[in-house]
């Protein structure tokens, strides 16, 4: 029998161990190939957008890392399961080099198979992903996915690299281990030691404290040194998470267990006890999974929020569909042109007082810079179709979407605003959400009532530090006319000093870039979730195999399958629930910090993503429980 025959035979024998590993390989290939295909697809390349190709490139590199780590990890889990078999080969006198060659042949066959199947499936499903992408980006053109040789070659190159690493891993396993350790590998478990009470208690508390401190700091990230703070938040939450898994959890479990004084009960015997025995070995992977889950979750929720809030964000920046500043001629001309086209619109004219000013010290969390101010009367805004009212006869409201708006909160009100050449400040009684005049004018807007407006106009004119300008604001009344109006507005003849920006094209651009972002984030998130879920599942499969004898004993002692499963499900609540719960809480705080960047609420999108995330974890937990149930049932026929 040649080595090749032996490899085929051993693969056939091992198929029940292999098929999941094979499946994991195929899945990685499919996802990578789809990604590579999209990267080179005509429909996307033709967009000619530099940002798109850069984003794809960066995400592609990240994807290689995730896939590589996942495959190597999965390989190590499955190698452990086969250690006895490898030991047996050595026992019957096969040379280490022969065994290594056997494994290499097996690995090569598996790799070729996975690449073939993966690329084939990838070709079938890439169209679905491309359609999804284009839908998100907002193109609804008929497209066909072209076969990309480049994508095929790139996929093959990447995976040959990864398979080379797993091959090295296998060879090391054969050469580095003694026969004895190979035979005992499957049984290796740790035995919980009594924690040194004082030290353990302190460390256990430290884990919680680190996390709490990280959360606390994340709330104050913008107060002082932003980058130092964000670094502090990361370090403190990661360290805290590790301590929670490594010390706090085992300390807690130890406490619970010793309080039971031996009367542990079946469910605890099947959850607390085995958890304690494997905590040390699992702390690292649980920490990594939790932290990365939290990051992925925040990334997706963030990207989704951007996408979800594109329109609101644009509206906050641009309350008018478009404006002209001191360009009465253009305003008149475009009105005529739109009338001709049958586009219904509302046209309003406002007079603004442009001047400089500054908020009183302490009005903001950050030192306040000089402001470029436009004073406008609420009456004129209402006439132009902006529904707004100044807070009082003597006071004003402040409106902006510049970085300033991140630090505005009502707690610091009222605050005084000093105009450059006026003694008397004006009281700001409210911060408005979003602009009242399109942002391309760069003004921070101060809204007052007409009486106050006239008074300020007089005073400012007297001091000579004011410029009086005219704004023409347009609202298109029917949604279906938006596109036509936008293209009229963008005609070269209307070009002024500033680049023209209007609401409609801003939303379209936002949809495109945010759609791409959500697609890439979602794609990476999916790959990541599937990887971590699979790793937890594979690990639990291993544990189930190791505990088989215990289940047989319990069945013989007269415990029913369901009674045993109760304990096992309780264990899975820890294994899947804890990383999920901690990463959800982490990401809630991360998103809270992130929400400073949004004008609109990201609650809905964040909750949507979190529910989706939890659902995928639940799916893997259910798969795991199913595997356990099978194992327990088969333990005693």
């Amino acid at each position, binding site marked *: 029998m040649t080595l090749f025959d032996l490899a085929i035979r051993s693969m056939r024998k091992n198929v029940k161990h292999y098929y999941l590993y094979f499946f994991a390989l195929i899945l990685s290939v499919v996802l990578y190939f789809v990604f590579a295909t999209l990267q080179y697809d005509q429909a996307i390349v033709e967009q000619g957008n530099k940002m798109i190709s850069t984003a794809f490139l960066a995400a592609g590199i990240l994807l290689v890392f995730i896939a590589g780590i996942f495959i190597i990890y999965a390989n190590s889990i499955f190698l452990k399961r086969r250690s006895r078999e490898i030991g047996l080969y050595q026992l019957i006198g096969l040379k280490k080099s022969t065994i290594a060659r056997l494994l290499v042949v097996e690995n090569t066959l598996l790799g070729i198979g996975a690449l073939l199947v993966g690329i084939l499936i990838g070709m079938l499903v890439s169209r679905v992903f491309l359609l999804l992408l284009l839908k998100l980006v907002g193109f609804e053109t008929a497209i066909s996915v072209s076969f990309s040789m480049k994508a095929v070659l790139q996929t093959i190159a990447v995976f040959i690299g990864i398979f080379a690493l797993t091959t090295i891993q296998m060879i090391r396993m054969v050469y580095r281990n003694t026969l004895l350790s190979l035979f005992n590998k499957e049984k290796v*478990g740790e*035995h919980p030691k009594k924690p040194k009470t004082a030290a353990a208690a302190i460390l256990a508390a430290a884990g919680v404290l680190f996390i709490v401190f990280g959360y606390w700091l994340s709330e104050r990230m913008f107060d002082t040194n932003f980058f130092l703070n964000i670094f502090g938040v990361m370090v403190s939450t990661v360290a805290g998470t590790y301590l929670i898994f490594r010390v706090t959890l085992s300390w807690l479990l130890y406490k619970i267990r010793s309080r039971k*004084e*031996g*009367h*542990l*009960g*079946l469910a605890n*015997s099947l959850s607390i*006890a*085995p958890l*304690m*025995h494997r905590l040390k070995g699992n702390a690292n992977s649980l920490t990594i999974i939790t932290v990365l889950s939290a990051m992925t979750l925040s990334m997706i929720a963030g990207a989704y929020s951007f996408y979800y809030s594109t329109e609101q964000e644009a509206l906050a920046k641009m309350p008018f569909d478009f404006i002209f500043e001191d360009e009465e001629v253009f305003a008149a001309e475009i009105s005529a042109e739109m009338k001709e086209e049958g586009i219904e619109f509302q046209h309003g004219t406002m007079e603004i007082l442009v001047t400089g000013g500054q908020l009183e010290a302490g009005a903001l969390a950050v030192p306040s810079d000089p402001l470029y101010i436009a004073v406008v009367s609420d009456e004129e805004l209402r006439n132009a179709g902006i529904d707004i009212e100044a807070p009082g006869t003597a006071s004003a409201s402040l409106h902006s979407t510049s970085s300033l708006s991140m630090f505005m909160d009502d707690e610091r009100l009222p605050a005084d605003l000093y105009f450059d050449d006026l003694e008397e400040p004006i009281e700001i009684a409210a911060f408005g959400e979003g602009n009242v005049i399109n942002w391309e004018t760069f003004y921070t807007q101060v809204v007052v009532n007409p009486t106050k407006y006239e008074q300020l106009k007089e005073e400012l004119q007297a001091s000579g530090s004011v410029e009086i300008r005219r704004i023409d604001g347009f609202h298109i009344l029917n949604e279906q006319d938006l596109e036509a109006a936008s293209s009229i507005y963008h005609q070269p003849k209307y070009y002024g000093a500033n680049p023209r920006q209007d609401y409609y094209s801003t939303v379209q651009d936002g949809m495109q870039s945010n759609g791409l972002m959500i697609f890439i984030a979602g794609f990476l998130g999916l790959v990541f979730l599937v990887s971590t879920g699979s790793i937890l599942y594979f690990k639990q499969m291993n544990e189930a195999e190791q505990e088989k*004898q*215990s289940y*047989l*004993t*319990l*069945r*013989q*002692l*007269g*415990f*029913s399958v369901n*009674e045993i499963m109760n304990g096992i499900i309780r264990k899975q609540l820890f294994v899947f629930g804890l990383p999920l719960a901690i990463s959800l809480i982490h990401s809630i705080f991360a998103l809270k910090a992130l929400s400073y960047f949004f004008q609109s609420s990201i609650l809905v999108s964040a909750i949507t993503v979190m529910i989706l995330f939890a659902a995928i974890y639940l799916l893997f937990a259910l798969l795991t429980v199913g595997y356990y149930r099978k194992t327990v049932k088969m333990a*005693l026929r």
Partner: protein
Amino acid sequence: MFTKIKEAIKTNKKPDSHSVLQADNIGKSFGSKGNVQQVLKGIDLRVEKGEFVGIMGPSGAGKTTLLNVLATIDRPTEGTITISGSDISKMKDAQLSAFRRDRLGFIFQDYNLLDTLTVKENILLPVSLGKMRKKIAEAEFRSIADILGITELANKYPHEISGGQKQRNSAARALINQPSMVFADEPTGALDSKAASSLLGNLADVNEKREVTIMMVTHDPLASSYCSRVVFLKDGQIYSELYKGAKTRQAFFQEILNVQAVLGGDSIDAL
């Protein structure tokens, strides 16, 4: 006393209130059509309360199969089994599980302790679903651990104790639920002779002090000399029975050896 029982078995085949276990015409075959192997061929057996019954016989005689069938772990293909008045051959799987947990105790050759549990946690496992009050369970644990000499080991893990200690731990687990009957499958199989005698002494002790009924499968004549009765199986049938009666253990041991010699020279398990 034992002669009386012996007569009772001969004269009266009907179940009476004294018998813990009554098995009638037990048959068990394995395999499917065309390749059926009959392992047990019509075994009648009755065990009285407080008996310590040994089952002996050459390999392949069906000792372990008989034990498994009687202990409700396996089902007979024919015949009826009654334990403490309950007909177990009519029970469903779930009922059987509950029955095993509440009424029977088990000692296995390779201990089958849960590695992740301490000695005490292992022992209390059968009463872990909370039918027994914690106080009673604790008292029961103390008394059994005392008899078996494992009180000191309560908080140790199985990997920290010797084979003999593990088997006493396993015996304690079998006794904690005050079972009607304890089944032991080659309990001394993995022990050295000193640990084996000590365990057998413990079992005999428990049998006497707590009036626990024990059925033990073994191929070791020395082990079965601790029993009050030894049943010999051959080819799936009862070959003969020996009662210890008032004899010394040495004399009983000699008698067992004699039967074993007749039973089947070369097919006796090598010791």
